[in-house]
Every structure is written in structure tokens, then in C-alpha cells.
């Protein structure tokens, strides 16, 4: 390589950085940088009326799992927190699995339409995807609440005599999250199925495979990266959900997101809130790293 060429490459890299610099600056100030502040706050002492006192303390991290018993001064398991963690993880897994069971046939259906119809069906998935999450949560609430559409219809036809009490339960949150995150499952699955070579199915049938064999041994292994991508895209926002459990859980059935908010509000325990935020961030990062690892592994296998 001649020195002139080398200079050109250096120049090109420098321009790349210079052009990206303003975006990086704004992201550092208003997205990445503030995360450092949470880390700092998680190691401080809680102020009496909220905020923090600038003394080092591990209390924030400790109180994720243990609370101090006021009478005996000993530490006991923080049952309320454990219940909320369990609910968050359980509902997120249920949401992911159910979204897959519904989303996979849906994505398959879209991907096997002729091109013109495919664009139409895809557009129908995209509209809810871009529609305000709050509006969609409110919409599903309109259907399942006590005087909502579902109960009104069921009562009119006489299937039930008393409205079903769905709202403010785990079931409501599960229904709501599946509803709002379903498009996040369908879109990556569609992308994977769209690349799938349908001739493999002919080959499979020629070799006397049953439909079940075809699905299990040909389709699912090949579209696996899409399944993982969709699952991560549903699982991650479910775990950090705030709006859906707030509206459909009515403040009673909390998830981690609501527990975090509580610490910065009535709970007046900012260090605990900060520690909980970082815990959530760590779990999400682990899930994303797992995805990157699997996705890269798939690539190297061909």
C-alpha cells in the first residue's frame, strides 16, 4: 500500500468519526451517560424524603432481596420483591411463548402469500407495531374490562350472568402484553421465513416426511435465528414493561418496571430503585449477548 493510499484510508476513518460525532454526543448526554449516574446512586444512602444522601452504602443492592425487620433488626427475605420478580419473569416467558405460538403461523401465512397480497398483510402487522403502546393497552382494556366489549357481549348472549373480573389480574397483564408485543414476534419471524427455500419442503415430501416431520426437522431448525430474534424482541420489553402492567394491573399487580417507579415515588428509596434498574439492565444485556452468540454461531455453521 502506498503512503498516499494509507493517508486516504486514515482520512476516510477520520471523516467517519467526525460525521458521527454529533449523534454520539447527544446519545452520550441523554442515553448512555445517565446510566453511569444510576450506578453511582445505587451505592448511596437513601434520603429520608426521597433522593439520596451522599454516603457510600450497599443498602440499595441488599434491599433488592432482603429487608430489615424493624423489631428484631435482622434481615429477612423481601417477599414482596420476590413475588414481583417471579411475576415479571413468569409473565414475560408466558407472553413470549404464546406470542410465538400465535406469531409463527401468522408469519408463515404472510410469507406464503403471493407478493402483492404479502405487502398488504405485512402492512396490517406494521400498523399496530407503530401504534402508540398506550393506545393499544387502552384498546385491549376496553375489550376486557368489567363493562367492556367482551363482558357486554357475553352478558347479552347470556353466557355469563356476572362480568368476568379480568382487569387488575396477572391474566389481564398477560393478555395485554401478548397483544401489544405480538407484532414484534411476527416481523422477525416473517423475515426468516421469507428467506426460507420452499423447495426444501418438496424435497422433504418426496422423501415421505409427514407434515409434522417437515415442520419439526426442516422448517423450525432453519428459521431458528428468526425465532430467537422474535423471542428476544418480545421478552426484553415484557420484562421491562411499565405501561401495560400499570394500566391493566391497576397498581396492584406490579412488575419490575412499576417496582422501580415506586422506589422513586412513594417508596422514597432511590438507591434501591437504581439497583433494581441496573439488575433489569443486566438481565436484558445477558439476553441480548445470548442472542448475538447464537446468531453468530448460526452464521458460522453456514
Amino acid at each position, binding site marked *: 500500500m502506498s503512503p498516499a493510499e494509507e493517508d486516504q484510508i486514515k482520512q*476516510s*476513518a477520520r*471523516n*467517519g*468519526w*467526525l*460525521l*458521527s460525532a*454529533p449523534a*454520539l454526543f*447527544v*446519545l452520550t*448526554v*441523554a*442515553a*448512555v*451517560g*445517565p446510566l453511569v*449516574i*444510576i450506578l453511582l446512586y445505587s451505592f448511596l444512602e437513601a434520603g429520608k424524603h426521597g433522593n439520596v444522601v451522599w454516603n457510600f452504602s450497599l443498602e440499595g443492592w441488599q434491599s433488592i432481596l432482603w429487608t430489615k425487620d424493624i423489631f428484631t433488626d435482622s434481615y429477612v427475605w423481601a417477599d414482596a420483591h420476590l413475588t414481583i420478580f417471579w411475576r415479571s419473569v413468569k409473565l414475560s416467558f408466558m407472553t413470549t411463548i404464546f406470542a410465538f405460538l*400465535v*406469531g409463527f*403461523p401468522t408469519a*408463515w*401465512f*404472510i410469507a*406464503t402469500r403471493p407478493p402483492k397480497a404479502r405487502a398488504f398483510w405485512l402492512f396490517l*402487522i*406494521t*400498523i*399496530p407495531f407503530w*401504534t*402508540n*403502546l*398506550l393506545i393499544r393497552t*387502552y*384498546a*385491549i382494556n*376496553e375489550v376486557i*374490562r368489567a*363493562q*367492556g*366489549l367482551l363482558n*357486554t357481549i357475553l352478558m347479552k348472549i347470556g353466557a355469563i350472568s356476572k362480568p368476568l373480573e379480568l382487569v387488575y389480574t396477572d391474566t389481564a397483564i398477560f393478555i395485554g402484553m401478548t397483544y401489544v408485543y405480538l407484532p414484534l414476534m411476527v416481523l422477525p419471524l416473517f423475515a426468516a421465513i421469507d428467506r426460507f427455500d420452499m423447495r426444501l419442503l*418438496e424435497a422433504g415430501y418426496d422423501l415421505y416426511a409427514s407434515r409434522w416431520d417437515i415442520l419439526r426437522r426442516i422448517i423450525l431448525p432453519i428459521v431458528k435465528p428468526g425465532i430467537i430474534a422474535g423471542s428476544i424482541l418480545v421478552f426484553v420489553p415484557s420484562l*421491562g414493561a*411499565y405501561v401495560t402492567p*400499570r*394500566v391493566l394491573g391497576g397498581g396492584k399487580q406490579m412488575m419490575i418496571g412499576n417496582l*422501580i*417507579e415506586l422506589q*422513586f415515588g412513594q417508596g422514597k428509596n*432511590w438507591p434501591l*430503585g*437504581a439497583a433494581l*434498574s441496573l439488575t*433489569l*439492565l443486566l438481565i*436484558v*444485556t445477558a439476553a441480548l449477548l445470548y442472542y448475538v452468540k447464537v446468531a453468530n454461531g448460526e452464521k458460522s455453521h453456514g
Partner: protein
Amino acid sequence: MAKPSFQVARLPGFSTVAMLAFLALYIPILTLVVYSFNSEISMGEWGGFSWKWYEKAWANEAVKDATLRSLNIAAFAAVISTALATMAALGTTRRRVFKGQTFIYVMINQPLMVPEIVTAVALMILFGLIKTVTGVHGLGYLILAHSAFCIPFAYLPIRARLEGMDLTLETAASDLYASPWATFRRVTLPLLMPGVIAGMMLAFVVSLDDVVITEFVKSAGQDTLPTYMLGQMRRQLTPEINAISTGLLFITVAMLTAFFLLTRKQD
């Protein structure tokens, strides 16, 4: 050649599940829209078509205020994030891969990966500190926060557009002694424009829809439409919320349709 494979690709029950999924996706949204036109307050009765709830929402000072604030923030955030994303896209495409490029990608996509509640809490602490120190409480904080999380949404379509453009026209321009700036303004930017507009529209919609970060960053009296609605949902639910939602829904669908038409022209 592709025709016969449609038969092979049939899996029993899949179409039924898909149809049910589409129904499940649209029935709640359509219910919400239909009942925004109901003159009765309860869902049990249909009192006939009426614009009543729209008039009521529009007469509500708090709603009007929140609407204007939402549009204001979204407009600023869309323009700022698109400008930054366009520069970053120009910096990270159509050149030899350079050291640190992956870092730039990770930074740009960071708002998509971190749970919103975590960013919201972090911004609340940081901006809270700044607010106490400086005493400034303007809309600037919200605009800055929105600009940041809109960057990846603006960046993706612009980058996609750039990757589909080769450098021949730019090379031709500079061969004809056009200055780099003239080349950018007269050649690159016009070609890139559909991507830029698409990116700006996505950023606008994303900013307009934000609930969580706005809820934590806003000072008193800075409600946007979504945070106003979230507050109302704690109280009595009236079809006024349906009317506001339908309005927002209409903006989103209009923007998306325009977006699809813009990006389709490419191919």
C-alpha cells in the same frame, strides 16, 4: 416455478390461526375507534353517531395544551435526530470499514436495547440535578431526551437508502470539478431525500408516542398527550380518551402510509 410451492407450503390450521391473530389485533383498535363516536358514555348502549367526544376533547384546555406540546417536541426531536442520523449514516456507510465502527453502531442502537424504564429513571436523576443547579425547567430536556432515542429510528432508513446508492454519480460530479459541498448538496442529498424524509417521519411518530421517558423527565405542567392520557386512565374512563386516541391513531396511520409509499418507490 414458484407457483406449485404454495401448495407444498400449506400447513394445516396455520391460516386459521393467522386470521384469528389479525382479528385479535384489530378488534380492540376498531372498538376504540367506533366507541369514540358513541353519543352514550357506556359501552352497553349505542346512542347513535356523534362528534360529541371530539368536541369535548378539543374544548378541554389541558388536551389542547398537551397536543400542541406533543407536536412541538416531536417536530424538534424529529428534525434534530434526523440531522444527526443523516450525518452519522454518511459517516458509517460507503467507506472502508474503520476501527470503532462497531462501537458507533452499538451507541446508535443503544436506545433500542436498554429498557425504557431504566433510561427514564436515569434521565430523571440527571436532569433533576441539572434543574436544581440551574433552575431552568424548559421543554429543552424533553426535546433532548426525545432527540436521543429517535436517532436509531431515523438512522435505519437513511442508512438503508445510502447502502443502495453507489458512488458513481458523486465521482462524476467531482470529476467535473464540483466542490465536496456542491456534490453533497446537488447530488448526494437529493438522492438521499426519500430516506431522510422516511427517517424523519419515523422519528416523529416515535417521539409522539413516547410515554415512559416523558413521564419521568417532564416537569410539572409539561404533560404531552400520552402522559395526559396515562394520568386520565387512573380516573373515570370516558369516550373522550377514545377520541384523543383515534386522533393520534389517525396521525400514525397517515405517516405510515406516506412512509410506505416513499420507501416503495426505491425499488
